[in-house]
């Protein structure tokens, strides 16, 4: 039994967490607001598409995934007041107009024969961009000051990876001809170009490139 009075180092030798982080409180809140908006748009779309897809297995997966993204939106909604944004709706917005255009293009397919396009938009474009944005945030924020955001990011990333795998396997199982490969690729390219203009989930600098130095950030 150790001596209860003996001083111990506040950080154990194996605890390598660092104080500096790339994001100020304001920048973190701005990103979290964009995450919430994007997750909201995604779960709304997944919910809407359920009635439009004839494939029973896809229908059920969309139902399960719809909830996961709603839960992510809820986590971000609850995080905003903790980042000094007492009116979460103020920051729950698209990062720019190109992102609005992306959502419009993503949710365009409705006909029952367009399941491939619906899934490609979500699982080959939108979710990979979520994974990038969340990973960048996780790897660059302060391990200590922003620990609550990191905890949510880890939970959410686990969902995103699982859903991406589910979705990709559904797409592969639905694509049966070279023409369908072309269809999937064309739709993916169209959406990627819009998202390129948007700069990613949180706009320019989503994954670091073109990131402006934000006031209060410690790099």
């Amino acid at each position, binding site marked *: 039994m150790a001596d209860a009075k003996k001083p111990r180092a506040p950080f154990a030798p194996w605890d390598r967490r660092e104080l500096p982080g790339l994001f100020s409180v304001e920048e973190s809140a701005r990103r979290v607001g964009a995450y919430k908006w994007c997750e909201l748009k995604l779960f709304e*779309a997944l919910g*809407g598409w*359920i009635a439009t897809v004839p494939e029973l297995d896809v229908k059920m997966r969309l*139902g399960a995934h719809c909830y996961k993204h709603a839960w992510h939106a809820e986590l971000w909604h609850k995080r905003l007041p903790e980042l000094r944004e007492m009116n979460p709706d103020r920051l729950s917005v698209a990062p720019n107009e190109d992102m609005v255009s992306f959502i419009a293009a993503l949710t365009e397919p409705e006909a029952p024969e367009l399941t491939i396009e619906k899934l490609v938009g979500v699982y080959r474009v939108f979710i990979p961009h979520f994974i990038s944005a969340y990973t960048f945030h996780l790897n660059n924020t302060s391990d200590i000051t922003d620990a609550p955001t990191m905890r949510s990011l880890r939970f959410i990333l686990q969902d995103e990876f699982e859903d991406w795998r589910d979705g990709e396997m559904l797409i592969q199982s639905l694509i049966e001809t070279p023409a369908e490969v072309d269809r999937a690729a064309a739709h993916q390219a169209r959406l990627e170009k819009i998202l390129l203009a948007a700069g990613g989930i949180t706009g320019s600098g989503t994954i670091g490139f073109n990131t402006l130095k934000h006031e209060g950030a410690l790099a």
Partner: protein
Amino acid sequence: MRKFFPVEDLARDERFNQITMDDRMADQRTAITTDSRPSRAANRIVPSRGDASDAARGLMHGIFVGEIQALEGAGRTCWDFTTGEEAPFELKLDMARQCWDEARHVEISIKLSDWMGSEIGEYAENTVLFQAACSNDPVLRLAGVNRALEGLAIDVFTTMKEFGEVAGDQYLEFAEDWMLADEVTHVKMGSDWLRKITENDPERRKKALDFQSVVDKLFSYGGTRSESQESPIGLARRFRELAGFDDQEIDVIADLSLAALEERKAAVLEAQAAHN
């Protein structure tokens, strides 16, 4: 993708055969029974009934397609209304949660149908549940779907759970009990949101409750669900209480259901007389 999706466009594979309530009511077989005896004293789905297996399989298929439509309806509520303006963010979160629950119910129903020896598409799919989810007011959807139809689901799952219990089918009893827990949650969601959103809008609340009453009556068609043993499905008072119904509300549904049963019996006698 459009806002507000018409019932006739619901996407299905080729195994499904969809019918509307009008189709069902126009079907002579549902009005004229070849059994010339008066109504059985007990129609409740119990293992001792001669046609219990087929009746249970048919009901299970009805649950299966009902769960698909409930999944689609909850999903559409996530999409059809603008967040914050037409439907609160938190309400949509609840609807998304319901999507996940209903998706699991579809999975459970498929497994149970297989267990009971039936196949997808073996029975027709009545699309009336989704029709109740097409209102342009989210409060009416909550009243019609969460309170009326999910309330019926509580009755159905209770009946099926008891069927499994009496038949010694633990597989069925286990799964129905889990689905029953979810349905109580969904009905409570409907009750809570209805009260919250219409707190200062009595007219809207009345409209929603009237709509619920219409759906309740529609689903009491033929006395399929009532407290009488003549109805195949019972009224699960205890679980309805847990879901936020008060005694008066349950009494109203009980009376409505019994009246529907009596109407049905009279109609059958009349049809038989005309047939003979």
